[in-house]
């Protein structure tokens, strides 16, 4: 029930949002078409501005994934993560979820295929993936777009939140499905 409402809401959100904004503006006598194109012009400026930052970050993370370094990191962290009760299958996911969205979905796919869609490990992995955000990508993109190079505590906050997120996902997943 809740799921249906939320799903319907997310499908309707974009068309409704656009329609409401445009209708409200025309009621206020705003020349909607002209104003739209003025604003839209800015889109290209931003798009070009972020290219160097995207190239820098995606290339670095792409190289890192291709080298096999993530599997290596997963091996190093394995004893620590096993000690808190994380299944070994989930360790690569814990490392990748802050780095790459498509990467974490790929790992989730592997876990789901190997263990089946109804397995406990698969459900834990799904909660871990569904609650993750690619911290490095977001930081590089958003800060890069406005020329900020000194991130201050934003990076530490993001990484700490990611690590806590792994534990919370495990805890909640265990509580619901365990």
């Amino acid at each position, binding site marked *: 029930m809740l799921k249906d409402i939320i799903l319907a809401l997310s499908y309707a959100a974009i068309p409704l949002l656009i329609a409401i904004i445009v209708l409200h503006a025309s009621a206020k006598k705003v020349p909607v078409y002209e104003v739209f194109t003025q604003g839209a012009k800015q889109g290209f400026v931003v798009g070009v501005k972020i290219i160097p930052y995207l190239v820098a970050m995606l290339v670095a993370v792409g190289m890192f994934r291709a080298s096999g370094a993530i599997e290596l990191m997963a091996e190093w962290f394995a004893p620590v993560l096993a000690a808190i009760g994380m299944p070994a299958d989930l360790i690569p996911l814990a490392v990748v979820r802050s780095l790459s969205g498509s990467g974490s979905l790929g790992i989730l796919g592997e876990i789901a295929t190997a263990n089946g869609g109804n397995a406990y490990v698969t459900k834990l992995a799904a909660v871990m993936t569904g609650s993750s955000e690619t911290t490095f990508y977001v930081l590089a993109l958003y800060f890069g777009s406005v020329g900020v190079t000194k991130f201050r505590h934003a990076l530490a906050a993001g990484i700490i939140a990611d690590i806590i*997120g792994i534990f919370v996902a495990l805890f909640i997943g265990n509580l619901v499905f365990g």
Partner: protein
Amino acid sequence: MINYIWLFFIVASVVVAFFTGRLKEVGDAAISYAGVAVQISIALMGVMALWLGIMRIAQKSGMVKLIAKAISPVIKRIFPDIPPDGEAATDITMNVSANALGLNNAATPFGLKAMQSLQKLNPNKDKSVASDSMCTFLAINTAGIQFIPASVMAVLAAAGSDNPAEIIAPCIVTTSIVLVLAIIIVKILERLFPEPAKLEKRKAGKNA
């Protein structure tokens, strides 16, 4: 800081690849991701133009002010340094709502716009230094609030899950907890490592 992280990714990749014998794959990845980055930027230009156009209309019509006013009590608490009924407040709200609904195509343009608005309000003399508000905004963003993890559900369904939707509630609970913790963490860190502009203010206050 970012210099070291970037350096680490590159050097670690090459060193590890040397031992795992994946130097060719790492080289291929570098070249292909450079292309992917430009493809993403170009795809983003279109949606960016769409949302910036729509938001400009909303601004002219006064709707931005209405939205900002409605959420100003929350913004005041979390972002004490920005005007609670200003443009930045609205951009942040739009980004967070789009993220929550899983509308990635809208969330990123709103997020980039929010960063521009926050940069205008950046109190630091050196504009390459992040403001407290920017750090808080990004902490909220990296917490990954999302009501419907659609792509995850798709993977589960493909793997023969009986009920892919059962992960929705745990994901909402998890991201909500992480969101609250992320805000607490970022607030603690901003006290420990104060913004240059605030340090200067404090100094000026002591001397006066």
